[in-house]
């Protein structure tokens, strides 16, 4: 299996065989986390950059009475904050949503990677994709009704997982609980349950355990108003390639 980290970055720049070898070497320091564990807690001094290799992680904020908002999801291949080590404190937490294998990259290693212009381009592309995704989530949470909002999230995850070879055309393995989906979409778990039922009744999705089958992706995307350009899987402009 091709490393999902490399597979993702290939969308951002034309990497050479040496670049791929350097990226593979950068993610050798791997830690495992159990579902629910913090990878980088809020308030800590950020040290290393994290790359999810297996499992799912998230970026989240906790409120005083225990409410949690997930503000980003990390699937295999995703990097958490390229330049985080310049900050004095984590203003949010990074946690594992499922059991996960996560690589840690030291600031020195990040420096070496970003000295390579092709890898630098790919990592900058990745940062822009993260920001684009956050904007799309803001629109999703702020403006779309529940059924379209959840359908939009499913479309996005299907595209992201397929891009790194972790899902096929038929659907995706969605290892999240209804409570986690509620924290992601700003909906109550009660309404997540009702909304999943609505999507199933309309035959937009079929569920079997954790697996979400998508009988017709285009139909689901049209229903959700999902337009994948913010994921920038078309890559970067030809004239910025190095």
């Amino acid at each position: 299996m091709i490393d999902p980290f490399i597979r993702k970055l290939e969308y951002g720049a034309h990497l050479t065989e040496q670049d791929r070898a350097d990226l593979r070497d950068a993610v050798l320091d791997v830690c495992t986390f159990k579902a629910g564990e913090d990878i980088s807690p809020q308030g800590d001094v950020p040290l290393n950059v994290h790359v999810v290799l297996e499992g799912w992680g998230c970026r989240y904020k906790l409120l005083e009475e225990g409410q949690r908002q997930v503000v980003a999801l990390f699937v295999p291949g995703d990097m958490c904050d390229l330049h985080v080590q310049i900050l004095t404190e984590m203003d949010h937490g990074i946690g594992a949503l499922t059991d996960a294998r996560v690589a840690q990259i030291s600031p020195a290693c990040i420096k070496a990677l970003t000295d390579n212009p092709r890898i630098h381009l790919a990592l900058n592309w990745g940062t822009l994709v993260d920001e684009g995704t956050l904007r799309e989530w803001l629109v999703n949470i702020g403006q779309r009704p529940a059924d379209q909002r959840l359908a939009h999230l499913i479309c996005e995850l299907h595209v992201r997982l397929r891009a790194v070879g972790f899902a096929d055309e038929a659907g995706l393995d969605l290892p999240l609980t209804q409570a986690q989906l509620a924290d992601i979409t700003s909906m109550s778990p009660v309404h997540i349950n009702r909304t999943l039922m609505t999507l199933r009744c309309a035959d937009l999705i079929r569920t079997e355990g954790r697996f979400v089958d998508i009988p017709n992706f285009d139909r689901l995307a049209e229903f959700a108003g999902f337009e994948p350009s913010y994921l920038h899987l078309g890559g970067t402009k030809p004239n910025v390639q190095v």
Partner: protein
Amino acid sequence: MRYFFDTVDPSGARRDGVGVDCPSDRSARRLARKALGEMFSESPNVGDETYEILVRDNAGATVFAGTLAYRRD
């Protein structure tokens, strides 16, 4: 603690057999208000409609009961 959210909407009554973990009665009630609002605001609103949520705790005691209704007149 686990709380159970029974709902009634125009399509029928649904008893919650799974439940949701909440740290307190207060947070269960907040969740119930939110869920009731979600059900209500996303209704097709085609006539007289009533939406209800009743929250039970593990021991079966009611910790929240709320109703929202649309009227045609």
